[in-house]
């Protein structure tokens, strides 16, 4: 029994398993997140594309429906293949970025601004659990609009097409999951690092946009100035696009060519994307920097040496 009218007494009841305690953070965070009507509207908007994609898959396998709706042959127009799922993942992952922009920045910054970290960390709750708990707020929410509907679409297609298609395209399910998950983890780490770095939500949101768009702009300037595609290595969007293309087996190094002249001679310029491994490496470095920032900033108290 507790303290009210009985004086101070210790708690003697059952305890929750330690491994599950990080989930307390997303449970309480969602109460706050879903209070925003704007967020709810945006979250609902994120399900429009999966719905449209499901209808397309259905139509793909229903000749009667196609003839009733007087639509041309959707099968030729929009084939259900790696490109279809790649397009689905890229568009949903773009929405995921904006969803993260709404829920990510205040996650740690609010705790830092209100000096709440000592309260979390003075309990049987480690820094790792705190970070994983905060990351899971983003991971769970963004998963619901990326790989979860992606895999459901894959299963719908497999159900309608038959076991043969499922068997020969199983790798695509792995690609759907992996391409979304890599992006989700990168987003979660980025938003936590930015959130840990700035105590004000608006500044943290601005910084997250800046991290995404400013290097991309610089990358494009480098590409134009030096007639190369190496500038993509500093653009998070371009890095992710290469990785997604690689995972869906659509990656091509040569993405264009043009003719130019040098010393009066006509030359062919071929634009080569950076190799796939370099995109993975750049993403790894980017995440490593963010993790270092998180390790440095997420502490009960900052120590001045």
């Amino acid at each position, binding site marked *: 029994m*507790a*303290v*009210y*009218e009985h*004086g*101070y*007494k*210790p*708690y*003697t*009841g*059952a*305890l*929750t398993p*330690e491994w599950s*305690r990080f989930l*307390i953070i997303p449970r*309480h965070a969602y*109460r*706050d997140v879903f209070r925003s009507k704007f967020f709810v509207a945006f979250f609902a908007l994120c399900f429009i594309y999966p719905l449209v994609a499901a209808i397309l898959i259905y139509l793909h396998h229903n000749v009667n429906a196609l003839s009733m709706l007087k639509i041309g042959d959707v099968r030729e127009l929009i084939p259900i293949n790696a490109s279809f799922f790649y397009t689905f993942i890229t568009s949903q992952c773009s929405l995921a970025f904006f969803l993260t922009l709404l829920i990510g920045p205040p996650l740690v910054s*609010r*705790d830092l*601004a*209100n*000096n*709440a970290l*000592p*309260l*979390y*960390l*003075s*309990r*049987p*709750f*480690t820094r790792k659990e705190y970070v994983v708990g905060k990351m899971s707020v983003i991971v769970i929410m963004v998963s619901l609009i990326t790989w979860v509907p992606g895999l459901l679409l894959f299963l719908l297609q497999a159900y309608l097409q038959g076991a043969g298609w499922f068997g020969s395209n199983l790798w695509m399910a792995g690609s759907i999951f992996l391409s979304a998950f890599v992006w989700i983890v990168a987003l979660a780490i980025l938003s936590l690092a930015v959130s840990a770095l700035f105590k004000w939500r608006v500044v943290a949101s601005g910084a997250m946009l800046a991290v995404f768009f400013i290097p991309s702009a610089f990358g494009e300037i480098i590409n134009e100035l030096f007639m190369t595609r190496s500038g993509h290595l500093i653009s998070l969007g371009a890095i992710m696009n290469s990785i997604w293309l690689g995972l869906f087996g659509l990656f091509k190094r040569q993405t264009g060519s043009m003719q130019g002249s040098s010393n009066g001679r006509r030359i062919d310029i071929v634009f080569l994307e950076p190799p796939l491994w370099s995109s993975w490496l750049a993403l790894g470095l980017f995440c490593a920097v963010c993790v270092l920032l998180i390790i440095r900033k997420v*502490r*009960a*108290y900052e*120590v*001045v*040496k």
Partner: protein
Amino acid sequence: MNPVIELDGLGVAFGKRHILQDLRGTLDGRAIGLLGPNGAGKTTLIHTLLGFHPATAGTARIFGQDINANAKSIRALVGYMPERDSFIAKMTCVHFVRLMAELSGMPSEAALERAHESLFYVGLGEARYRTLDTYSLGMKQLAKLAQAIVHGPKLIILDEPTNGLDPPTRLRMIRLIREIRDSGEARIMLSSHLLRDVEECCDEILVLKDGRIAANCNLEEERRANRKFIELEMRGDNRGFAEAVGRLGCEYAFTNERRLKLVLPEGVEIRDLYRIAAEREVQIRRLNYKRDSLEDIFLKAMEGGAPVAGAGGGGNGNGSL
């Protein structure tokens, strides 16, 4: 039974700065007061016990568990009320305290029940549905206390709990701390600049100075020992009187011709002094029980020298006679 806190050569350094050095001792009071001037290392000691800072030398044990090896299980036994404003924004107080209880491992429903009850206990029952950012300073302090006790810890660490409180709220806070102490269900460690708070709540004190232990004594025993310490002002055959009480086993010393300090041994009472004075026709003009206040102990510890340790050692003991 394991003592509350054992300090075993504990040292903490931030870079090249040594904040705590070679802290040794056993703290086993029901309420332990942590005293020291600014920068003495009080908060660093608390943070180190909670595992926020790693020990760079030695170790400490809380209820027998090593802070380096068992930080997480120690934190399950501890409730912490930080000095600074600490809360989670945009949350009602009951939601905040419930979250803290859940993080301590309580199931959601039990956490909610205890959150309500602990808020009633600290006197925030009527305000528990208000968001924390609308609370006054005193209410925030009480909310911090509620979150520190909601999971029923065995050790409650309170860092400056009466900071910024008006007199009635301070009294309420002191009353709550004493109530918890007297319940015997939890030990308390109270860090405060206010000697009065420590004196009212604590039965043991640890005084830190420049990161070292300047004094560690049991206030109750200290007070008991000081009851036997007496100052007399006399007229008459003072020397003869002193020799007579010396034969009873009293240690004594003259501070001037008319003033005598003495320590009564077991079995010797004040009435024996009056009897000897009457026999020798000595007038006892003044008789004072000399009792060290916490302020005396604190100031003496701040004056430097060897650490004051153990009962009786902190008073105007035999050494000064």
